[in-house]
């Protein structure tokens, strides 16, 4: 697959990458290498200039093809403020489930469960833009978790988290998830969560 932003340089040139169910992948690379871009391509938020993207055994081209992908894969954005656009934590977490057709009752239960899992009890009624960066990070993760995805794409999930909260995130990932790609610049963190490591640089991706 190849990709470049409009009026920008080529970021990927005939890039090849695949992952299987159960892969716990760490992705590293210098700033501007295209890590975030790769995740957005997987979610269908950007479209490749050439080449193909195949997910869950089907080639995905149009926006329509990605609807299913977006339900089964959860993306944590690099900047929490992009992800948290609702007034309160509760509404933000419920936004996804409600869009998936859950009733208000179910959504409320999901909100409660998700908050419990991530140690966010008591945050439901808080106003999102008054949270600290670390709290925003966790709530953003909660909005992804609430959709019960099979696979997670996490764009620098641990930035802004203190040691204890990072540990909580690690525990959560170990116990509740099987398949993910984590982007990070923190190698210590990566050693704890990733079984495979990839480096992305100069439009190449290679396994370490």
């Amino acid at each position, binding site marked *: 697959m190849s990709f470049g932003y409009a009026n920008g340089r080529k970021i990927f040139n005939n890039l090849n990458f695949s992952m299987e169910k159960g892969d716990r992948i760490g992705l590293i690379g210098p700033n501007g290498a295209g890590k975030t871009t790769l995740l957005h391509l997987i979610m269908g938020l950007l479209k490749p200039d050439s080449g193909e993207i195949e997910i869950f055994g089907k080639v995905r081209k149009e926006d329509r093809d990605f609807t299913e992908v*977006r339900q089964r894969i*959860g*993306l944590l954005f690099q*900047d929490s*403020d*992009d992800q948290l656009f609702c007034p309160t934590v*509760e509404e933000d977490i419920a*936004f996804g489930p409600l*869009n998936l057709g859950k009733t208000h009752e179910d959504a409320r239960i999901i909100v409660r469960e998700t908050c419990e899992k991530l140690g966010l009890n008591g945050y439901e009624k808080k106003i999102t833009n008054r949270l600290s960066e670390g709290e925003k990070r966790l709530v953003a993760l909660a909005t992804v978790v609430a959709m019960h995805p099979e696979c997670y794409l996490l764009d620098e999930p641990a930035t802004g988290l203190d040691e204890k909260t990072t540990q909580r995130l690690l525990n959560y990932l170990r116990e509740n998830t099987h398949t993910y790609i984590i982007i990070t610049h923190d190698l210590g963190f990566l050693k704890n969560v990733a079984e495979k490591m990839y480096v992305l640089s100069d439009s190449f991706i290679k396994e370490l």
Partner: protein
Amino acid sequence: MHLEEFAEGNSFFHRLDPRVKFITIIPYIFVIAFMKGLNGPVLSLIISLVMIAFTGISIKKLLSRLVVVNAFVLLLWIFLPFSYSGTEVFQIGHLKATREGFLQVLSITLKTNAIVIATIAILGTSEVFSLAHALVHLKVPDKLVYLFFFFYRYISVLHEEYIRLKRTMTIRAFKARTSIHTYKTYAYLIGMLIVRSYDRSQRIYKAMLCRGFKGKFPIISHFHLTIADLCFGFLMTLITVLIAIISKNG
């Protein structure tokens, strides 16, 4: 940015249902805005002051707010007394200040403050987000309400971006003067802010797509009318009708 300074507190007004607040305040302030003469405005200013007394808002904060609001009114005090014909009060050069002019500007001043104080007492004592929620229930077009939600949500984010950009200007020894260089620098700062806001809005939209957005925003409702709300609604309606009648006859 600390914006909602009056919304903190736990008075009767802070606990009222925002839907009732809108339904009662809109007729009240419009009746005041349409008033002429002095009787109605004096009475409504007194009522507004009684309301604000119940909110427990500090007088200092209230006054500092009123000073800003009355800047325009001050301008009127300079011009209007000389712009009506009638009984002369005093004269400067060939400008004649009249009793009618003074009464007119006094009436405006009372009306302005009555409306503003009521707005602070009733709407200022609720969180902005819960007021916006109330609008959905009052059948305001939902697009407008969502626009408001997103707009308010991202002010603080963009304000931080602005502060960061401003800082990079300051550390590079930028000093604002009346010069083309200054205006150009500000223009680039604003341009950058616009670009950032555009990029961010694209990312927000992507985040919405990732969470299954299909063109509708689900709203979780959590308002419950209480007896106090109904009483307040009834009382305000009564007051509004009363001041309307009094100002008409006086």
